[in-house]
């Protein structure tokens, strides 16, 4: 009799503990997942270019966290990002897959041939990071400092007046001088 009682009691306790721990796990898993997505997103270049086949950096980060995407899908981030992702996610490091596009050697930014621009605002709507300014029927221009080089503005342009050009900082900082005290 007492054997059964003991068994029953222990099973009940075990069940209770299992329930409690699975609840705690589900709670913390959700939080851990969010934290992981945030950490992955921090490593991504935030170009929002969609070359990874996802619609932006955050969706790609989510896919990485869920294990449905690979770490080598981000050409703008390059091998550096792939390496950081490998380290964060404990996966084997690999180089960026060329199928997702070439890695830019230098950072490129969009440039609008302003005389040709008809002011259709299509590129403004396409820019994921609000780096193009201009009004309807007025000339548009790219804020080069804020352009991430995603190239999303190029296809919508009806007059094909947008080019990618190497980014040139507006002024040479003092750091180009040999550092002195």
């Amino acid at each position, binding site marked *: 009799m007492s054997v059964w009682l003991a068994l029953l009691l222990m099973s009940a306790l075990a069940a209770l503990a299992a329930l409690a721990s699975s609840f705690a796990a589900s709670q913390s898993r959700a939080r851990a997942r969010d934290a992981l997505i945030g950490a992955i*997103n921090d490593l*991504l*270049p*935030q*170009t*929002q270019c969609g070359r990874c086949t996802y619609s*932006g*950096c955050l969706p790609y980060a989510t896919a990485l966290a869920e294990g449905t995407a690979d770490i080598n899908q981000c050409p703008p981030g390059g091998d*550096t990002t792939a390496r*950081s992702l490998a380290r964060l996610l404990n996966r084997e490091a690999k180089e960026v897959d060329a199928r997702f596009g070439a890695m830019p050697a230098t*950072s490129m930014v969009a440039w609008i041939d302003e005389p040709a621009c008809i002011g259709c605002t299509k590129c403004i709507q396409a820019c*994921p*990071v*609000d*780096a193009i300014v201009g009004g309807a029927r007025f000339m548009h221009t790219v804020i080069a400092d*804020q352009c*991430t080089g995603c190239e999303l503005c190029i296809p919508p342009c009806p007059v094909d007046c947008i080019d990618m050009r190497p980014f040139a900082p507006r*002024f*040479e900082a*003092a*750091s180009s*001088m*040999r*550092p*002195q*005290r």
Partner: protein
Amino acid sequence: MIATVGAHGGLRLEGHKERSTETPIALAPPPECAILPLDQHAGMRAEPVVKVGERVMLGQPIARPQGEISAWLHASISGRVATIEPRPAAHRAGDSTLSIVIESDGRDERWPAHTSMQDFRERDPIVVLEHIARAGIVGLGGAAFPAATKLMGALRSKDCTLLLNGAECEPYISCDEMLMRERAHDIVLGAEAIAHAIGASQCVVAIEEGSSLAEATLREAVSRASAGSIRVAIVPNVYPAGGERQLIATLFGREVPFAGLPTDIGIVCQNVGTAAAVAKWIQDAQPLVSRIVTVTGDGVRRPRNLEARIGTPFSQLIAACDGYTERMHQLLMGGTMMGIALPSDDVSVVKATNCIIAASALDLQPRAAEMPCIRCGNCSEVCPARLLPQQIHLNARASDLEGLERYGLMDCIECGCCDYVCPSQIPLVERFRAAKPELAKHLMARSNARDARLRYETRNERLERLEAEQRQKLEEKRRQARTRSP
């Protein structure tokens, strides 16, 4: 009393100053041809305001500042602008940079348009500050940061302490010591003008221990100053105690925050030479057209301090010191720890030229063959920034940017202390310098990414909000339509 609060690391190095301090400061003859690089100050290059062929006079402005951080440039001799073209420059280690070249007419005529401001005490501080800004004065300690820009920064904090740096931390350099010995009154006058311009109630002049002659004259000049708020402080003869951030830690026990400025903690630091230059401007209306240069080393016959016009070729200063000895081996601008090695003496004095070392093999200690790091920790013991150079070295070798960031590569001030004590003879500073651009690029990309993400998220929110508003409007219209047509 010698202040050492809050300082870490550093080295006690042999000073080698006796050689160049035996004779008083001598006047170097004005050059036949002055070469004036347009980027000889930190920040943006100055823009020429004279044309080739134009006649200029001593002290005439020939290039004006561009952007926030920049400085005026003045003709250091009278004559004709021969050309404006790239010329080898000392501060660029002999690489070419756009320079104005003036051929002397031998008359040394002064430009008459400048005015002095001897009554600065009665003027509005901002007027004095603006006046100082026109003198083209930059930090004469070696960094050549535009003095006026720095002083403007001081206006942000209510009561700044003015710190005048008379502590040459590097071996060989003695121009500041000679200046304090011979022109202490200029320093005090300059200090008063600067203090008035930025509204500083306190002024501290830092001077190295062991330079008793300079200390005595300075104390005497300070005691005769009208305002009694200038204090002389002695700092230990530890390299690099004369570095701005290290000096502040040594004297005040406070640290300038990373990526911040001394004004963030209510201190503005200027070299004593800068103060003397301000005095010359305030008193004699002479802009920065000359500076004191130490010419020293075993490779020059008569080491001494020279007051040289900006733009004077190095070769001419060497000649003024009776030329090279047969032991001459290497030419340095600056000290032996951070100086720039120059391939040729065919470059000219710039505002940052505090010292020219004609070094013989006796002055230099060649490196032995490089060995692997044995993690002895000598480097971290002497690092004034409290870094672990051995770990930075490891991470630099592995190109580990995250590691480099964690161990603070960007906080390295390139003083060379770690390099000096490394038993494995690893050229650490060279390695760190090479690794910095890569890390800077990485950090820049990350901060750009952060901004881009913020804009992306804001944009998405905005789009959602607009869509919701439109939906609402549509709903509203449908409702109205329904009520109108029952």
